[in-house]
């Protein structure tokens, strides 16, 4: 018995509504093998709790203050089994793309909850690809990110895409430049590029994606390449292919 107690599944419940958390807590009471390690009422708390408590199982709401469920996964980079719990059926595709174990639609009954829990148990201990990259990439076609989230120690920065000046690849990281500050995030530049609206952001170089609105002029630089001068004076290299993309976009806008 004591051995079983040691192997208790540690669950985290994330939902901004107290009553919604209460249902899950109550349904878990019938399962002695599961203990509730913590509860969070918003995305910030969830990111912190996931990295500190390292739960095995997360019940995750999608629409929450500050960070939504997908952003939480992206930042927390957990390998816990995740069960999304939401009133919206529209996120189901995205949820399975980030390898969610199950997707519970509110309100749900005991039988449905048990089934989700069984699935979660069978998935425990399986190593899955990191959720962070998946969460960043998983979005419906033609729906681009409205903001980017970066975790910096225990702090979380939210950068609305309108305030992103450019992104720069740095080894395994990408530096997001916004208002003179740079935020490092563990993500590839290609996946950052993929979640940004191609009408507003251009890959001007192997290592750079720029916010089109920030570009004030293009200057020749060397034989084949050019420089993009941003509103704040930053100079970014533009490759030949990058220049072609930039020119096509500017022409398309009739600028």
């Amino acid at each position, binding site marked *: 018995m004591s051995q079983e107690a040691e192997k208790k599944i540690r669950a985290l419940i994330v939902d901004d509504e107290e009553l919604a958390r209460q249902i899950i807590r109550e349904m878990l009471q019938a399962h002695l093998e599961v203990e509730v390690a913590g509860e969070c009422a918003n995305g910030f708390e969830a990111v912190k709790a996931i990295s500190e408590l390292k739960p095995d199982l997360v019940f995750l709401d999608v629409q929450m*203050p500050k960070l939504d469920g997908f952003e939480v996964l992206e930042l927390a980079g957990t390998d816990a089994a995740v069960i999304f719990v939401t009133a919206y059926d529209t996120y189901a595709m995205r949820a399975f793309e980030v390898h969610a174990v199950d997707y519970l639609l509110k309100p749900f009954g005991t039988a449905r909850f048990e089934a989700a829990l069984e699935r979660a148990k069978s998935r425990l201990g399986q190593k899955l690809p990191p959720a962070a990259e998946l969460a960043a990439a998983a979005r419906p076609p033609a729906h681009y990110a409205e903001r980017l989230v970066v975790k910096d120690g225990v702090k979380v920065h939210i950068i609305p895409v309108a305030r992103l000046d450019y992104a720069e690849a740095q080894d395994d990281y990408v530096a997001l430049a916004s208002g003179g500050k740079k935020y490092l995030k563990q993500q590839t530049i290609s996946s950052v590029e993929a979640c940004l609206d191609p009408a507003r952001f251009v890959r001007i170089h192997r290592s750079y994606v720029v916010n089109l609105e920030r570009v004030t002029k293009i200057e020749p630089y060397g034989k084949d390449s050019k420089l993009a001068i941003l509103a704040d004076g930053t100079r970014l290299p533009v490759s030949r292919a990058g220049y072609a993309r930039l020119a096509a976009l500017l022409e398309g806008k009739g600028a």
Partner: protein
Amino acid sequence: MHPILARIQRLGLYLLAWIPLAGLLAFVLAASGNLGAGEALAVAAPLALIYAFVCLSAWYPCRMIPLGRASLARLLLSHAAAAVVSGGLWTLLGRAAASALAELPAFAGFGERFTRALPVLFGMGVLFYLLSVALHYVLLALEASRQAEGRAMEARVLARDAELRALKAQVNPHFLFNSLNSISALTSSDPTRARQMCVLLAEFLRCTLGLGEQLSIPLAEELDLVRCFLAVEQVRFGARLNVEEMIEDECRSLLVPPLLLQPLIENAITHGIANLPEGGRIRLEARRSGAGLSIVIENAVDPEAPPRRKNGVGLSNVRKRLEARYGERASLEAGAAGDRYRVLISLPAETQV
């Protein structure tokens, strides 16, 4: 289809109208050609009957040359030409009839006397034709106005349909799912509150269904609905949801379209309060200013939250409904300033439909 030929009753009326015309024709023919009354009638009656049908042909040029759109010169020339041709043909027909009658012994010397009446016959032909042109224009105008009325009616029905559809779509299913989830949670922990919430939810739904059928309701009724909605949401959000009402008493009886405010309050919650970990305040204000009614809905927002993606279906619905109902007399302004989002509606202060 010709409007007179289309119905037998109309044709009957039309031919009846020709009886006095035939009489008039007989009279002028008798006077100008020195004919006897019998002779004049004998020739005028069949001529009038035939010409009655000839005059119906005026319908086609009338339809081709609508009044007001064609130039006056074209109008006069075309109809005058048609009148002259019809009158001429009629005169020829009259002469042929007269020479045929002159063969009969009872009509001795008729042909010669009738020849003197021919210019008058021609004149009458032109005149009758022009009268018929006028008649057909009247008929065309009547038909056009009936069509316009039909179209206006159709537009009204369509607008009403659209409004009802919009209203039905406004009750957000996610609001229901979330409320049902709260009830599900309360059934074991607090059955009394669960029951209260069922009642509130039912009351809200019944109001939405009932109010959708009405064109206008007093603001007080809309506020009852809004309070019902807020009471349901209060259970979900608890202390995070704060509401402040500042309603001037004299506004309560003013008429507003039903479900005008509810979608905006719903927006204030889903795009405002729900995004704030500590929640916030919704302020609802109604003021009467002269001949107008101003309603303000203001709520706390997270300035860092992404902008509303669709700019609010509820908001655009409300805007469209105001526009359809009041046109220029109503307006809706919405926008964020810092951590507050504000919607201002101005509409005419109406107390009766």
